[in-house]
């Protein structure tokens, strides 16, 4: 038997243990250093953010709470009236209570309240841009997949295009189109669609690359050409995943088109920005409730659809 010390370890064992201890100490030191760097970075970032803000955080904090306390509709029913465009008893001719403005009449006596109509506009922007992005992403993704296109060069080119579409700031596309087409939803649609094409394209080609290639081989053995192989060999495998990703994207795009709306794309985002900027509490809360309900409903619906499409493997939220 080998020599053992009082701790029950051999000479060799003790050396290993000592080495292990040094490694642990070293690792702790590195963790500590990384933590300290992070703390310093965060403190620096906070100081910088505070200094470059229009109002200092601690100066403004009390006013901020005041703002929340004072920013209240006259009564709870006022929010309902703003939401459904019913006349307000407080009406004094100002913008604050002009709920009846902006109604969209479908027939005499039957109208869609302004906010609900604008929410519809925003949802349509999101859906249309998702559809357009989807239609653009499908061909691009097949061109970027390594199991469809052999040439590394052309694949790389398509991938760079997808990255550019994804990373190009949406507000610039929207701003450019607003300058040309004047303010309206088309700018928002194009901006969101371009980003969607890039984002979906990236996910799609990864799905394609993970596809089972045996159907493809079978088709090739039977003499199918490239397009037939894609349509009958790959498409049936990847389409459920594609649609599932597109639904997830539609969910994200509802939020994206709200934001783009606020910078000149029309829809509910713009109206929300105006009402909060003018301190119209009832209108603001009406829109918040509307947005909340819509987003929850859309998340729920798309979640259900996705689960039906690809079963329990439906990916979680990642917006």
């Amino acid at each position, binding site marked *: 038997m080998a020599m053992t010390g009082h701790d029950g370890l051999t000479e060799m064992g003790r050396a290993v243990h000592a080495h292990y201890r040094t490694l642990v100490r070293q690792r702790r030191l590195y963790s500590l250093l990384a933590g300290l760097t992070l703390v310093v970075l*965060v403190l620096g970032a906070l100081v*910088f*953010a*505070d200094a*470059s*803000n*229009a*109002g200092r955080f601690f100066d*403004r904090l009390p006013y*901020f709470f005041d*703002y*929340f306390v004072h920013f209240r509709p006259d009564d709870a029913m006022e929010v309902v009236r703003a939401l459904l465009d019913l006349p307000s008893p407080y009406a004094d001719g100002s913008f604050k209570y002009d709920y009846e403005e902006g109604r969209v009449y479908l027939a005499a006596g039957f109208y869609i309240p302004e906010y609900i109509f604008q929410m519809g506009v925003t949802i*349509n922007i999101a*859906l*249309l841009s998702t*559809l357009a992005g989807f239609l653009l992403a499908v061909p691009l993704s097949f061109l970027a997949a390594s199991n469809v296109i052999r040439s590394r060069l052309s694949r790389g080119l398509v991938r760079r295009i997808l*990255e*550019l579409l*994804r*990373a*190009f*700031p*949406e*507000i610039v596309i929207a*701003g*450019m189109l607003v300058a*040309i*087409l*004047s303010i309206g939803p*088309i700018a928002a*649609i194009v901006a969101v669609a371009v980003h969607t094409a890039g*984002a979906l394209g*990236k*996910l799609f080609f*990864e799905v394609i690359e993970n596809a089972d290639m045996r159907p493809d081989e079978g088709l090739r053995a*039977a003499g199918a050409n490239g397009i037939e192989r894609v349509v009958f060999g790959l498409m*049936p495998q990847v*389409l459920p995943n594609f*649609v599932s*990703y597109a639904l*997830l*994207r539609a969910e994200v795009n509802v*939020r*994206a088109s*709200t*934001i*783009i709306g*606020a*910078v000149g794309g029309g829809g509910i985002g713009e109206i*929300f*920005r105006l009402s*909060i*900027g003018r301190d119209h509490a009832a209108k603001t809360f009406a829109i918040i409730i509307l*947005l*909340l309900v819509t987003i*929850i409903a859309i998340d729920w619906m798309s979640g259900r659809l996705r689960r039906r499409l690809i079963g329990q493997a439906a*990916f979680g*939220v*990642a*917006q």
Partner: protein
Amino acid sequence: MTPVLGGEELARLRTSHGRLLRDRRRRRIVPLLGAVLAVIYLIFCWSFFNFPGALGSAQWDRAGNYVADWYSWEASPRFRFGEDRIAVEWTRSLLGDNPDPDWIRQTGSGGYTVLFSDRSRIEIERGRVRVHLDGVSYLVEITSQGALLPEGAPPAMALKSGRVTVDFGFAGLAEIRSSQVYVRKRFLGWPNFFFDTRSPFFGMDPGELWEAARSTDRLDPRMPNWQLLFAEFFYNSEWQHLDVMAKLLQTIVMAFVGTLFAALVAFPLCVLAAGNITRNRLTNWLIKRCFDLLRSIDMLIWALFFVRGFGPGPIPGIAAIFFTDTGTLGKTGTEALENIDDKPREGMQSVGASPANVQRFGVVPQVLPVFLGQVLYFWESNTRSATIIGAVGAGGIGLKLIEAMRTNQDWENVAYMVLLILVVVYVFDTASAKLRARLTGAPSEREEPAR
């Protein structure tokens, strides 16, 4: 392709495996139905958003100019017909107040020649302008009512309310009026990107700059030349490099601090929300609904509220990202916690570890890489979101971009900022993908759909 199966064989299969064949037919119909619905929806949207109207009234000629502004600039002198001579005026000129470029030549008779390209130029004299367009010459007479379009003028020349415009394509255009000739000549590049035209360093090449910076001969008595060099660069009035960098840093800080704080708050809450760690249904339910609420309130709403409260700047941006992402990270983190493998925990319990150690060694090592991966992913995608919410007042490069776009003239600055944003997004994408791959030990890019 021809069907391989014969009629008899197919009939046998149909009786034995009928369900499989029926299912295939249904599978064929569903995508078709989807395509038909999509087409109907596209037609509906075509009229709902009034595409024909909007595209019809669009100003496509402006679009060309705006796009050209991204990578080129214009010099726009006016040749005003005075009493006895032709005066050259420069407005908003990048060439300085009184330039003498070599593409404008004075002729002997007091007129001017403006060269657009080798084969295109205009010769301006009192009462008439001779236009050379691709080697063909046209004479435009000017009367007191306005300019006259010559006989047989090409489509590049047009008469509009007494003004003759000559389009030289990318090289620019000339507008001949009764009182003046307005010239716009376009050049590739950003000439004053480094130094303003008024700066003493304008137009120097790198060698000259190096010499000037080292020289003890002070260009400005208040500071040494190298300091002046930096000052002139960073405070370049048109490009505002220092301001752009500061705004870009604000955007990065917004994403960094917002995501980090969201992660720090979300992780402990996840532990309370996960049913397999905290065995209290009410707490689980309450915290999960809190996450849902935070997540469902749009980032725009948070941003606008905080802009009202704290004024424009990075604080509203940080707050908006923080609140939205606390909800989202909380939800994904809770899911990760609830899906952990219970065996390490049982192992820890069976060797008699304290409750804290059971969690520390039985749970945390399983979820931390997943959670950190998510955090990194959100950090990266928030760099993009921070640009957009910046535009509604939350500060950073987004606000600067929107301001530059509103003027409709500073598209070259927009291009510069877009370039910077693309670089930052690319760097963060790569860094976060690398870090995530190291955390999970495998390329983790595939797991999360991109925002």
